[in-house]
């Protein structure tokens, strides 16, 4: 348990505790107060009961300690609820802020699956957030049972022994419960998974089902395993019933034993009637090792959550510089760049203001090259320069303002379709956003949406081609010195592709355009083609020049011998 992550997790928990402010301290204080009150109250009760018979000690003076302890206990419980909740809320929020900040800082290099990031930020952080309150509670939870046994021994050691002997039975009971319920819950979940799987299938085929009018038949098919679910569910109830019955019996018999033992002492004159009441109370308290277990389990879960969060926070984030981009036309230089085991010592200069197509077989590193151009990834060796400035020296915002991207499968952000196009460091005016959409051939389908540009993104299901056009519109709206199109027109139908590529070539004629292309037609229209092969630049020139090489033609799937027309 000396892995850096474990240490990181514990550091994280300490940080969370510090940031949950005074609440964590309050949790500890109330837990101690509550435990003290719980241990002392039966003693006070005993005195009050013994003071009740007429002619005995002053009844009123014996009552006041009870009142004081009850008040203490009640106040502690009320404050504890408040403090536990607030400390968890603050610690969780602190962790989540840290996670979000770090995920954004690491960027696309993050090596955690997306669903997992959400899981760690939501579930993991929430669990880790309970640690600051769970830790003192777990420590203090031992006090009442230990205190109860101690006081009991102080009243009469025989009573303490009697109670201590009965305790292992309770522990045993808990273990049986956990084992039985786990097996049955597992079977239950598997039936439930079957139903969920069938429902998912049917939902994916909704259009077929709607057309065939077979919804009711489908519902019956999905629900066919339901009786099995019921059977497993009933088994779980049976197990639970058995546990409840045993629990009830054990507790009652423990109390009967306590009354019997204390009664015998009472008869012998060694304890008072009040102390008999206290004995039954203490027997219950001593049996309360359950809460200790609960708190320890909670603490374990909290540490697991913290470890999950720490795994994200330990991913290195690239450092940014603070330099501005020097004057220039958007010239990109790759100097001896090796990256991802795909590019090996690549040297390339992309002249400013030209449309440069990057071609190569799949796996040649085209997308990696695109990512390096705008520092979405850093090379393992070598450097990338924009107008003479190494990218890591540039301020992040500067770099983003000058290098824009459109992707094959863009992800859209924002409330509405218009927001999704406006997404970026600043918001361009609406007229420009619409103009960008027109340029990307997105205007047409956007205006067919229920509320046009104001349609919520969630209500605007898009095909792959429509999504690409939105991604292009977004890139156009923020276009700076360099525009990187990473296979950004691959899902467009032929006509639209020609229009969009035309716009890229004409309207953005003064920018550097790095176009990752799979189609020969796209390469043909670029000013310059860079042909990647084996991690290096294999050829550089116009499409027409390169086309003479059969190996270049093979990149586009043109089989040899080409042109064997009948």
């Amino acid at each position: 348990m000396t892995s850096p992550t474990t240490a990181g997790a514990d550091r994280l928990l300490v940080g969370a505790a510090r940031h949950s402010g005074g609440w964590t301290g309050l949790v500890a204080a109330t837990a101690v107060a509550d435990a003290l009150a719980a241990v002392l109250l039966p003693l006070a009760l005993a005195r009050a009961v013994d003071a009740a018979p007429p002619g005995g000690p002053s009844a009123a003076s014996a009552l006041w300690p009870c009142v004081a302890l009850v008040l203490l206990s009640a106040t502690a419980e009320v404050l504890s609820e408040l403090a536990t909740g607030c400390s968890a809320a603050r610690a969780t929020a602190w962790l989540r802020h840290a996670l979000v900040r770090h995920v954004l800082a690491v960027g696309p290099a993050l090596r955690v699956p997306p669903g997992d990031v959400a899981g760690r930020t939501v579930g993991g952080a929430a669990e880790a957030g309970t640690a600051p309150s769970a830790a003192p509670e777990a420590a203090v939870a031992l006090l009442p049972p230990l205190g109860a046994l101690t006081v009991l021994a102080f009243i009469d050691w025989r009573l303490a022994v009697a109670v201590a002997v009965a305790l292992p039975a309770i522990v045993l009971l808990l273990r049986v419960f956990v084992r039985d319920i786990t097996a049955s819950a597992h079977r239950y979940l598997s039936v439930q998974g079957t139903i969920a799987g069938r429902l998912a299938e049917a939902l994916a085929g909704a259009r077929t089902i709607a057309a065939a009018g077979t919804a009711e038949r489908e519902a019956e098919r999905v629900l066919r395993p339901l009786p099995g679910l019921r059977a497993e569910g009933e088994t779980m109830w049976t197990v639970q019933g058995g546990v409840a019955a045993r629990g009830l019996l054990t507790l009652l018999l423990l109390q009967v034993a306590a009354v019997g033992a204390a009664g015998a002492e009472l008869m012998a004159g060694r304890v008072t009637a009040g102390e008999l009441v206290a004995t039954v109370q203490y027997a219950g308290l001593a049996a309360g090792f359950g809460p200790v277990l609960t708190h320890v389990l909670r603490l374990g879960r909290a540490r697991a959550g913290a470890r999950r969060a720490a795994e994200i926070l330990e991913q290195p984030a690239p450092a940014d510089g603070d330099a501005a981009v020097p004057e220039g036309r958007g010239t990109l230089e790759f100097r001896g760049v090796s990256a991802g085991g795909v590019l090996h010592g690549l040297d390339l200069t992309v002249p400013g203001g030209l449309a440069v197509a990057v071609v190569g077989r799949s796996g040649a590193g085209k997308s990696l090259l695109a990512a390096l151009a705008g520092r979405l990834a850093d090379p393992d060796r070598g450097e990338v320069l924009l107008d003479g400035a190494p990218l890591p020296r540039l301020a992040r915002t500067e770099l983003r303002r000058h290098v824009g991207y459109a992707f094959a499968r863009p992800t859209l952000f924002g409330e509405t379709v218009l927001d999704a196009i406006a997404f970026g460091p600043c918001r361009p005016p609406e007229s420009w956003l619409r103009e960008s959409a027109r340029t990307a051939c997105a205007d047409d389908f956007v205006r067919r949406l229920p509320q046009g540009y104001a349609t919520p993104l969630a209500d605007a299901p898009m095909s792959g081609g429509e999504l690409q056009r939105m991604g292009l519109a977004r890139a156009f709206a923020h276009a700076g010195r360099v525009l990187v199109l990473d296979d950004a027109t691959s899902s467009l139908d032929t006509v639209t592709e020609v229009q969009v590529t035309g716009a890229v070539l004409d309207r953005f004629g003064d920018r550097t355009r790095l176009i990752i292309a799979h189609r020969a037609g796209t390469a043909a229209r670029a000013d310059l083609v860079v042909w990647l092969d084996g991690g290096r630049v294999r050829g550089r020139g116009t499409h027409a020049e390169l086309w003479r090489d059969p190996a270049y033609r093979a990149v586009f799937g043109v089989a040899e011998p080409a042109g064997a027309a009948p």
Partner: protein
Amino acid sequence: MTSRREAARLLWRTAAGAVRGRPRAASAVLAWSLLEAVPTAVFGRAVAQATDAFLDDRPVRAAAWLAALAVAAVVGAYGSRRLYLALAALVEPFRDDLVRAVTRGALYRSLRGRPDTGAVARLTHQVEIVRDTFGGILVVARGFVFAAGAALLGLATLMPEVTLLVLPPLVAGLVLFGAAFGAAAIRQRALVVGEEEIAERTTALAEGLRDVVACGAEDQVRERLAAAVDAQAAAGRAVARFAAVRALALAVSGWLPLLVVLAAAPWLMRRGATPGMVVGALAYVLHGLQPALRTLVQGMGGSGLRLAVTLGRILETSAPVAPPLPPVAEAPREERADAPAVELRGVTFAYGASARPVISGLDLTIPRGDHLAVVGPSGIGKSTLAALVAGLLAPLEGEVLVAGRPAGDPAARVLIPQEAYVFTGTVHENLTYLAPDARDEDVVRAADELGLARLVRDLGGYGATVDPAALTEGQRQLIALCRAYLAPAPLIVLDEAACRLDAAAEARAEEAFARRPGTLVVIAHRVSSAVRARRVLVLDGTHARVGRHADLPAVSPLYRDLIGRWESGDPDRPSPEAPGTAGPEGPGTADPEGPGGSQPPGLLGDPDRVHPVPRADLPVDAGEVVADRPDRQDEVLGDLRRRGPA
């Protein structure tokens, strides 16, 4: 859940409904609960008598009382065990009802909109929460009623005047708890919703991290998420405040009675109460009332809120369980043997009131036995047209008739969409989905016709169970196509239903359909589908034209463009019928237009070998197509008319 009372009301309605619906299980629960409460009722009395017996030096009598208590404990434990079985008979059917409601709700809703597969996991999860919490509440709330009732009853028989002292604080605490419940439910709901929002936003962020960074929008995204996180922390604190109120309620109703009994003890003993009776009264409060209250407040506080909130959300999302479309109206006109297979009259459709129409003023007649291909750029409304013909969408204006009757009758047409539906079941079940009465030899023949035989063999025969996830998209599409082929309906609409097949497999399938009697409408993914069709409908957003493949290029620039690109050997669109277009002759023929640029765009794929030059006397299907606006220029074909046949 908008008002404070609604949460409590929902809980009450649910519990009452579940109980009323199953009176036998409910009375069993009642009976076993009574038995379970026996030790609680006896406890104080037994302790009182035993204590007094011990004080009087009568150990046998004391032992007898303790033995009686032990017997009561055994009886109670037995009752408890049986009780859980009775509870199962209440909770499990309730869960079954919920699963049914959720399934039907999700299914019917997805028929009208986009399938939401995320809902499956969420709803199943939520159903479990409801089951757990509903069961938990039945255990806790019912347990409280019986345990508190038994303790009070025992107390009343032991010392009636103490009961009167204990009741006011007990009731006061319960009232406080109840009053805070609704408000707490609202806070708890905010917490659940906030959690979902953070999960959604984080998932979106993680999935689109590259885009966020590439767009330089880190700050924007961070601020939004930070706001959600802070709102969630505030919601967490609000919930904590209500947890504190719950603790206060517990203190009032649990601790005050104890102090009241203690304070009254001297007075009671002066009135003749024995020490044992005081001890017994305390035992009733400490071991009967207090544990019952604690479980109630904690159980109802946590799980009760969860139940109210989650159940509310399930009901919100699965409420409208209604058929997706009004049932096809009783045919207003008789099916006419001579009615065309499909007739669209002045059909206009848009996806929203203010949205631009996707289809406007379209007239189209598809005669029986026709084979029509629909082509056009993506997003132009081809699938919308298919849905209109199938009756899955209703036009804003105009009408759609299938065989002379309003569209929408599943027996009259089959629509196979792009996303092929294959379910976990046997191959045979999947293939005969639309034709349950199909004979085995028909199924085998259909599979042979469509080129499915090999896949069936690989899967292990017709009786083998299919795992849809193990099939490729293309294999699933083949199964769906075979299913359509077997269906008895006279009209088949294939909406890019073969787009994942390779070109040869697609050709084989379409040719099989063309041989099948009946009418075929193919929404084309590849232009090759149009080449095979008898007629082609071109949608370009403003016009709709019908004509033969050979004739259309002359009048539709779009169509010219489509087949031109296709034939230029674009590697993304391989074309089996145009083998001569694969590339240039060799080195030196490179052309900026691409590898196929040296080939003049031609119509090599035309199966009829009809010369593509338009002629004025071209045979055209007059009166079948129309666009939203007649275009004089293009009337060379004479196929554009505002009105369909009267």
